[in-house]
């Protein structure tokens, strides 16, 4: 491990490879490396089993249902034995799956990055929405701009907007110790209502099309601002290049977290804020930076969805997403992916496939009704989060171990630690 000496003092013993299986951090590392792949797979399998039970109880066949969902995902495209006519359908389905995977990777990263710093970002929804508001505004304005700078401007401003939105929670956490769970939940709903206001009838960003004045929807973005499609037909919602941007973001996440001083500080704060502070790391600066970074990931997700395939925002979409929108799946994605870059990408693919496979458009209604299947997806998602919450048991033990260590070592326990609500 390449650790920076400046910040290392308090943590050197914990992070050093020779201290394996002695310190909490080393034990955590061993846990992640050893059982790291097995546990998430077991979690997902268990969730799908319970989901199958639900299907069975309500009088459907779980095997044919899951098979239909799988075929709806288009993942059979990769099998060599798929016939060429099936392959054409599968390609279309797989494009949908990957389109859904794109924002899931990013909203998953938005949650994972916060977790690595010991924060829980439930605000992906709001950060995503704010990003898409800015993207639709930039995309629909500046019509005369050339395509590349137009797209770049929309993406950059949306990312910054997401960062600023989440930054509010970061600043509140760092300055007055407001719990980030509460503040991000509130920011979600503020974003929802602000959006409902912006694109409502007579709202400031409602469309300017005279024949559409009774429809609460934004303007369509300029055709130049749409992300290029590299697989499939652009007219039929082919796969846009946003996927590569999301993958690049995952790579960036890994480098930032594992190969930079900042990332080291973030992880140090996540493992033990007190020790990090003692080691000369500014904990409050880390909180603000991490929340802003999370918001940037989620805001980027919003802009990619908008510039990639949505092209406009309707107030209906906003209120529908308020409860069970894509960004909420980011929580399950991050937890299942154990808050690592690779894990998040894999979990995003799983949930992207599940969401696409159960969608109205892709699931064969003669086998299982898509409306039911959508709710099945929610149940599976809930189960995943529930199960992961309990296998955080290891982390709980770590925290207790550290609390005991702290009680013996330093008598002053800051109240901020108990700031849970």
């Amino acid at each position, binding site marked *: 491990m390449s650790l920076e000496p400046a910040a290392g003092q308090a943590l050197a013993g914990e992070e050093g490879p020779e201290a394996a299986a002695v310190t909490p951090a080393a034990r955590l590392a061993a846990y992640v490396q050893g059982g790291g792949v097995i546990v998430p797979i077991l979690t997902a399998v268990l969730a799908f089993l319970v989901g199958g039970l639900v299907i069975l109880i*309500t009088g459907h066949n779980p095997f044919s249902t899951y098979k239909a969902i799988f075929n709806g995902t288009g993942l059979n495209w990769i099998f060599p034995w798929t016939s060429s006519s099936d392959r054409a359908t599968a390609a279309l389905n797989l494009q949908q799956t990957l389109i859904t995977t794109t924002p899931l990777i990013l909203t998953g990263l938005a949650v994972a990055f916060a977790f690595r710093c010991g924060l829980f970002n439930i605000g992906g929804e709001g950060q995503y929405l704010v990003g898409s508001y800015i993207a639709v505004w930039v995309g629909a304005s500046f019509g005369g701009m050339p395509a590349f700078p137009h797209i770049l401007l929309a993406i950059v401003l949306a990312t910054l907007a997401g960062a600023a939105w989440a930054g509010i929670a970061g600043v509140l956490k760092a300055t007055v110790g*407001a719990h980030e769970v509460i503040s991000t939940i509130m920011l979600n709903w503020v974003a929802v*209502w602000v959006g409902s206001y912006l694109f409502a009838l007579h709202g400031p960003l409602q469309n300017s099309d005279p024949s559409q004045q009774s429809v609460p929807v934004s303007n369509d973005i300029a055709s130049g601002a749409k992300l290029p499609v590299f697989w499939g037909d652009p007219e039929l919602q082919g796969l846009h290049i946003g996927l590569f941007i999301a993958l690049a973001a995952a790579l960036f996440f890994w480098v930032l977290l594992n190969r930079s001083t900042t990332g080291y500080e973030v992880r140090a704060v996540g493992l033990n804020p007190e020790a990090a502070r003692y080691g000369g790391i500014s904990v409050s600066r880390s909180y603000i930076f991490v929340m802003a970074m999370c918001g940037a990931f989620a805001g980027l997700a919003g802009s990619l969805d908008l510039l990639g395939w949505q092209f406009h925002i309707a107030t209906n979409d906003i209120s529908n997403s308020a409860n069970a929108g894509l960004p909420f799946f980011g929580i399950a994605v991050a937890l299942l992916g154990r808050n690592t870059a690779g894990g998040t990408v894999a979990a995003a693919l799983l949930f992207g496939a599940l969401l696409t496979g159960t969608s109205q458009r892709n699931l064969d209604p003669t086998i299982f009704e898509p409306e*039911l299947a959508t709710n099945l997806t929610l149940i599976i998602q*809930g*189960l995943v989060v529930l199960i992961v919450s*309990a296998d955080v048991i290891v982390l709980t033990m770590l925290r207790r171990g550290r609390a005991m260590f702290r009680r013996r070592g330093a008598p002053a326990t800051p109240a901020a630690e108990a700031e849970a609500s």
Partner: protein
Amino acid sequence: MSTAVATAAPARSIAPRHSGWVGVALGVVAWFIALPPALVRSPIPSILIGLLAITVGAWAIYGGEKRLGWGAVAAGLLGGAGAVASTRSGVGNLKDVVTWSALIAATLRYATPLVFGALGGIVCERSGVVNVGIEGMMLMGAFFGIFGADLLDSWFLGLLVGMAAGGVLALVHAFFSINLRADQVVSGMSLNFLALGITGYIFLDHYGDQGTPDDIPRVPDISIPGVKNVSFFGDAIGRTNTLTWLALIGVVALTIFLFRTPRGLRLRSVGEHPRAAETVGISVPRTRYFAVIMSGVLAAMGGAYLSIAFVGSFNQGMTAGRGFIALAAVIFGKWRPVGSLGAALLFGFSTALAQRLPTFSPSGAVLFQALPYVLTLIAVAGIIGRSRPPAASGQPYVKE
């Protein structure tokens, strides 16, 4: 000696504190007189009262009461500005929007589910278990309430079924956070997804595209004989739902339970210092199980109110964030039932007003819905007094 200090200190601080409150009240009055029924059409009295509020506020700040003082200054500015705006808008519009009796009735309607949710949140968090799953428990109550009422053809049995469903979901939370020592925020969050999926699944599986039938037995309103025909009170509280009264009774009951009974003291001690509670013989797990399940039952009552009392039907995800506003009310009310009631009424009032504001600005009224969330952000930022959760909230307890 010590009593002298104790009496001297309040004597110094009471005056600016009181003047702060007076300033806030003056700000409210400044706006109030420009609205129906008083309807003063000249802006001058309101401006004068607003200025007075600012002066009194400034004096409070000078006296050391900064928070209330600034509150009074803000109230004076807002009240004055609002009054000027009101005197410039049409009398007809004003009378449409500001009908106090109807506003009070609507406030009570919108506040009821929030009060139930907040009571649930308070019980749970006072025992040291964080509950961000109130939204999900509410949703369970909303669906299973109407499901039970439909199947058993009785609103009362439906309500019981809904409460039981909320309790079952809470039981999951209790098991995970008490026995498995799960991260309580994560497991609480998972309940919201689970409830959304479970209720949506059974709803569609059973009712399909038709939705719930129209002839669901509904929780009756209580019309108070003496009050019903009195003009103002009759419209305001003459026909209020049984569950609304129950929510108000619940606030009193929970206050007494938490702060005036030994069991309540035990529950709070478990939330503040579980180790100390354990040493005097209180079972921490048992107390927490009781509190978490209670919270599910209470939140579910709020959900059931939505489906079988307020709306009379169910649609997917119908709680629409009310559980989170309830959570906000818990924080806003500083984990006290009466404080949370105040917060719930404030949030209910802002929703009630937002329903009527479209007369002035259809899109602006939408923005008004964000008010509870913004206020909560301000509250957690500590601008309106520090809001401190129970000390052991969120920490799993392990016996030594």
